[in-house]
């Protein structure tokens, strides 16, 4: 539990962070809340030579009503997201799910940007982002771009981010319908064994799954069934389609597939009744 030695740099601004990223290249890792990166470093599964601490970029910690969308700064911690009135009013699923992350300690340090950038398929917020068709604003020294959540998560701990990129903002829509996030976990502070996000928006329904594959994924079979008129219970039976969940001491793949169906039914029923 003792990390290999590393250099530490603290970024004073986003520009400074980008400059440091350019200088250190692939040797470096951004440090936000550290609640995913540091455990991996302690187990020596990650051994970056340089840490660039962006944890104090308070200008990237905000939740703003931005017309059609809600803009969330990448360095906003889970606890602030959970407590955000703007989110509670317009996109309650994000506030609710942030409140389901880990325990209070984790929520006060872990950030939404870190959660998304880490690319862990067991994380809760990426699934919600996928269901919401969220947009991620990314900066590099060469300029900025906006990525769609649907094109972002590419593999286990892999995303569309380049080593010199800084995720600065997350944009989610103002929801017109109900929502639900069903997180199934054994202990309060555990990651989801399986999680299901369901949202109703602009007359359609989107369903996304946590920990059912090596990336967060949309439950396409369920969505199609709903689109062609199935009721929630019937559509939910498609939830395990095309999934490849892990088997670990928390649950076999078989168990997870069954859970996905039960939780999808519950999520849809909750989303549709609110």
């Amino acid at each position, binding site marked *: 539990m003792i990390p290999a030695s590393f250099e530490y740099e603290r970024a004073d601004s986003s520009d400074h962070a980008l400059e440091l990223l350019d200088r250190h290249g692939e040797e470096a890792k951004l440090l936000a809340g550290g609640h995913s990166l540091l455990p991996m470093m302690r187990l020596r599964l990650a051994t970056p030579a340089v840490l660039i601490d962006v944890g104090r970029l308070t200008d990237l910690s905000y939740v703003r009503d931005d017309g059609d969308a809600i803009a969330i700064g990448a360095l906003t911690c889970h606890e602030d997201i959970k407590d955000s009135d703007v989110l509670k009013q317009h996109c309650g699923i994000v506030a609710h799910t942030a409140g389901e992350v880990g325990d209070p300690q984790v929520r006060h340090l872990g950030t939404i940007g870190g959660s998304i950038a880490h690319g862990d398929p067991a994380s809760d917020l990426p699934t919600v982002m996928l269901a919401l068709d969220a947009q991620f604003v990314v900066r590099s020294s060469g300029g900025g771009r906006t990525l769609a959540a649907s094109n972002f998560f590419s593999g286990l701990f892999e995303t569309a981010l380049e080593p010199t990129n800084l995720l600065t903002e997350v944009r989610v829509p103002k929801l017109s319908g109900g929502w639900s996030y069903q997180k199934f976990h054994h202990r309060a502070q555990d990651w989801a*064994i399986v999680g299901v996000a369901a949202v109703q928006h602009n007359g359609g329904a989107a369903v996304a799954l946590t920990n059912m594959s090596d990336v967060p994924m949309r439950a396409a079979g369920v969505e199609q069934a709903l689109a062609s008129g199935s009721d929630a219970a019937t559509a939910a039976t498609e939830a395990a389609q095309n999934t490849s969940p892990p088997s670990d001491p928390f649950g076999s793949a078989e168990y997870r597939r069954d859970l996905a169906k039960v939780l999808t039914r519950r999520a849809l029923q909750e989303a549709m009744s609110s």
Partner: protein
Amino acid sequence: MAQVADTAQKYMGGGVLRKEDPELLTGRARYIDDISMPGMLWVGIVRSPFAHATINTVDTSRAANLPGVRAAYSGADLASEWADGLPCAWPVTEDIKIPKHWPVAQDKARFAGDPVAVVVAETRAQAADATEAVDVDYDPLDVVIDMEAALGDGATKVHDEFDSNSCYVWNLEVGDVDDVFNNAAVVVKERYYHPRLIPNAIEPRGVVCQPNLPQGEFILYSATQVPHILKTTLALTLGMPEQKLRVIAPEVGGGFGSKLNVYAEEAICVAVGRRLGMPVKWIEERSEGYLATIHGRDVIQEMEVAADSDGKLAGVRANLKADMGAYLQLVTPGIPILGAFLYHGVYDCQAYSFTCTGVFTNKTPTDAYRGAGRPEATYAVERIMDSLARKLEKDPIEIRRLNFIEPFNEAREVASGLSFDSGNYEASLDKALEAFGYDEMRAEQQRRRDSGDTKQLGIGISTYIEMCGLAPSQVLGSLRYAAGGWDAATIRCHPTGKVTVVTGTSPHGQGHVTSWSQIVADELGVAFEDVEVLHGDTAISPLGMDTYGSRSLSVGGIALHYAADKIITKAKTIAAHELEVSEEDLEYDGGIFSVKGAPDKSKTVAEIAFSAWTAHNLPEGTEPGLEATYVFDPPNFTFPSGAHLCAVEVDTETGMTRVEKYVAVDDCGNVINPAIVEGQVHGGIAQGIAEAMYEEAVYDDNGVLMTSSMASYRVPSAAELPSFQTDRTETPSTTNPLGVKGIGEAGTIAAPPAVVNATLDALAPMGVYHMDMPVSPERVWAAIRNARGQEVESRGKDTTAAGSGLGSADTPGGDA
């Protein structure tokens, strides 16, 4: 004797706050990692990533050349340090197989985590880096993980020098067991697997060795429960004169049995300190703790009862296989024997048989874990009583009442041959049923069954007994334990009226300082604040047998009581002399000797302490000073008991099970400090529920621990637990004059069967009659599916790659 038994109780039984808490809670207490010395070096341990492998070569040259590294040793390099292997103090049978257990493996690694090399560096981080730079060439060997496979013909052997992996077979047979079973109207037989548990004390282990003091003395600081045992046994392992070794246990942050041991790292630090002549320190990393600190339980139990057609018990037959792991640690083989006499629980019968086979496997050694042997016994009895009830279509309460041993106030012999000290099992059950609202809960259960609710309710009962106060030395001798079971206390009355107590027990969170102060304050009539309690240093308390097995109060506390008696006896002689009356004319109460009929003529113990110190006017032949030591060897064990009731809610679609209500009525005899008893009960229940529903050490087929961090080994938190309702009955023990029994392990012993019985009770209408612990959501889900005839791929085979979340960061091989 027993002059103080009737003395007014001002503190005992009252709600005194724990004296030790302000320091512990404000971070001022000194734990092992707070100890630092000039020039101190850090030890790092290289551990085998393989569960079984030949060690071909250990190349330390790369590590030795890293910055700050002072030394790097292979097992062979250190071989000359050991006069003997690490000790096993409980060779339970004459023909037990005891493998040599070198602190650093020399030829073979026998579990993942076995130390294979040692590095010494200037900083902890340098030591950690250096462990990664030791190049060990291994030839992995076949492994034996499963106990039954280990006993099979042709199984790979953990130790080549033995003819099999069977370590010992221990038997106890009372009465004509076969006859009773052959003639019984009803026989129930079940098989239970008690999972392997990882202790997880909040404070990891740690050692600091300060060598070669001016007198050639070594001080070993260790986060241990057993400084006294450590001193004697380490002197033997290290070939060191025992009088030159001083062991100090600083504040210790929890043990639960995991620090009741003599560990490789303790021997290594003294050996390395001796070699280098420098102070050295080792602090266990949490991930090391999962591999290298002992595990608990891992027992297969075949449990069988014979009864008449009403359900009255006639015979009990228990057949165990207990996983020793790869080596025998301090008391590894004896753990199941601590439960051997309790498989009829609080019920009596005519015939009793118990057999246990100890088995070597390529896993971390097992040893004492809170409850040690007694949770296994209680689980087996309480599970099978429910099955017997189900078979006879009786309420589980009714079957228990039918079989309870009648209330008794004098010690009485029971079927297994023990003599129980006192008991009133009905009383605690009655109280528990009332607090639980049993009838209303049953009605609610019926409503949910009738409506086919997704969330079903189950009710579980555990009327347990345990055996505490280890132990009468002669009994230990007859069980082939290498040491005695006595304990010692010294009371030193200072001339200013203050008191120092020295105890041979070694508290690590329990609150002995408070309880011991209460006893002395009442018995000697001094203020609670004026009593100082010293412990945990073999130079300060030379006599002691330390703290484990709920023994401290019922052995060490009784030694204290008798030491107070000795003080009073001597003080009385002096008081009579000063008051110019005969001793018979004096009365003693609450620290004051007064002349019968003339109460204004009196002396306090404090006054006598002063005159004993000046020694100006002592009766002839009286030694100056007021100090007494008593060593108490208990005549019997104590037998706390009680009734725990639990209600669980089971989500029958997902398997999620939660404890909704928990009532515990414990009987630990007389109570010295109710708040401390409460604390022990709460923590014990939490740990018992953890065992029943959450925790399990899982190995893969190669012997790699899959649950090697807190992310995957599921220690629950307060968020998972309901608020417990606790109460007591008090049936004084007949084993000791304070009538105390012990409460340290009760919750851990009582809770698992209450929880599992409740879960099975919820699912019985669906046809689920058996589940092993932990009753995790997946197990419950699988049991329901199986009962419905839906096949489930067998659990366990499927557990390959860890998933994501921090769980994915659990390193296979644990070389972190």
